[in-house]
């Protein structure tokens, strides 16, 4: 499975790839792979989904603080979770990062 990539410039790490760095304007933003592990920074349990996700509800969407970087990633989970819980990437499905508790 492909590892998650983090893009960095001017001390800012993010999983979102930009054309130029908004701070210094550089167009060569460094990228590196990060570990699959992280912790729950925050989350919500979605009871009212858009129609395309209706079959999954209720489901959790978590903002995961990735280990070894200041970047976070938005993930879907099915288990009950709380802020601070340790989690790891389970799989990437239809463009979504699915995490599970460790």
């Amino acid at each position, binding site marked *: 499975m492909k590892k998650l990539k983090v893009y960095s410039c001017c001390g800012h790490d993010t999983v979102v790839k930009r054309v130029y760095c908004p701070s210094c304007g550089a167009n060569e933003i460094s990228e590196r792979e990060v570990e699959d592990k992280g912790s729950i920074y925050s*989350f919500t349990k*979605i009871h009212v989904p858009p129609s395309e*996700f209706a079959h999954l509800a209720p489901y959790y969407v978590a903002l995961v603080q990735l280990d070894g970087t200041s970047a976070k990633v938005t993930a879907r989970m099915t288990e009950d979770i709380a802020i601070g819980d340790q989690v790891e990437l389970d799989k990437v499905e239809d463009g*979504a990062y699915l995490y599970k508790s460790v």
Partner: protein
Amino acid sequence: MTTNTYIHGIGMTKFGTHEDRTLKDLLLDASRQALEDAGRPKVDAVFVGNFLAGSMSNQEILGAIVANDLGLGFVPTAKVEGACASGGIALRQAVLAVMSGEHDTVLVAGVEKMKHAKTAEVTQAINAAMDTDSSEKSAGLTFPGFFGVLANRYFHETGASKKHLAMVALKNRENAMNNPLAQFSKATSLEEIMNARMITEPLGLFDCSPMTDGAAALVISRKPSGIHIKASSLVSGPTQMQDASDLLSIPAIGESGRRAYEKAGLGPEDIDVVEIHDCFSMTEMIAIEELGFFPRLEGWKAVEKGLTKANGEKPVNTSGGLLSRGHPIGATGVAQIYQLVRQLRGDAANQVEGARIALAQNLGGTGSYSAVHILERV
């Protein structure tokens, strides 16, 4: 710099369910009211704020429809889209058009019709205001979902709880009960709000703005009137939750506020009455902090003390806000100005005695756009 534009007329339909009225009917109704309130001036251009008419009513060319069906002649028109900030951005485009010298008098309108569709379909259509080419959208995040994630972290870092969000919702409902144009006039209680069914935890039904039909309109001109638009600002911000450097900040709100204060030569302490984009109760909490009315992470304390009530030191959403006045997306930014003009004229629902300076903040997406306008009674 400040603007050389003034508000001459305002119009607004009742917000709520208009089963038997079309999008066009609502749009023309609010526009006609604004033109008559302004004394039927010659209109040089039209800007219409709208978000969903294309996807949900299969209707575009709203600018041309307004000009044609009102009989304004062959004037320049445009529809402006900025998700829930469409109305505020339409006003800003009108202000800039006057400031540039191109036009003297401009009609600004905002409209949305949503109630004819199912909740899942509307939620799906509104998701167009996310970056849909992102892993975050694929994960199933929604608008209320974003503010649910934000709320849980806010609770974690402060002493706030779901009760404080309920206090925001209750205040706005109490304000709406005095506003005949508001969608909701039924009394509620903290208990009912806190026990309502969950939408995106911890946000329940009363923490989320409703689906609404409605329209609002304004006439602005370089010709002086009693209401001066002192400042108009607009900025873009992060389009994805996972890209925010601080989840508990919505930088577009803060930056649009700073720019507006600078243009007006004013600060948050000068503002007498405020309309804020409370698409969710949590959003109002963050916005009162971002706009400098209360310190960061302490908005909940102000809410607990009642400081944002209509009779408090910083009255927020005397109209009832998006939560209870209603949120017909493209009309919201224009309806905020409608309420503030009524405040400055002295005949508003929940009138703030002697209000002279007013601020409106209109948000698009989860912080993708924020427009701020500061008005002064002159």
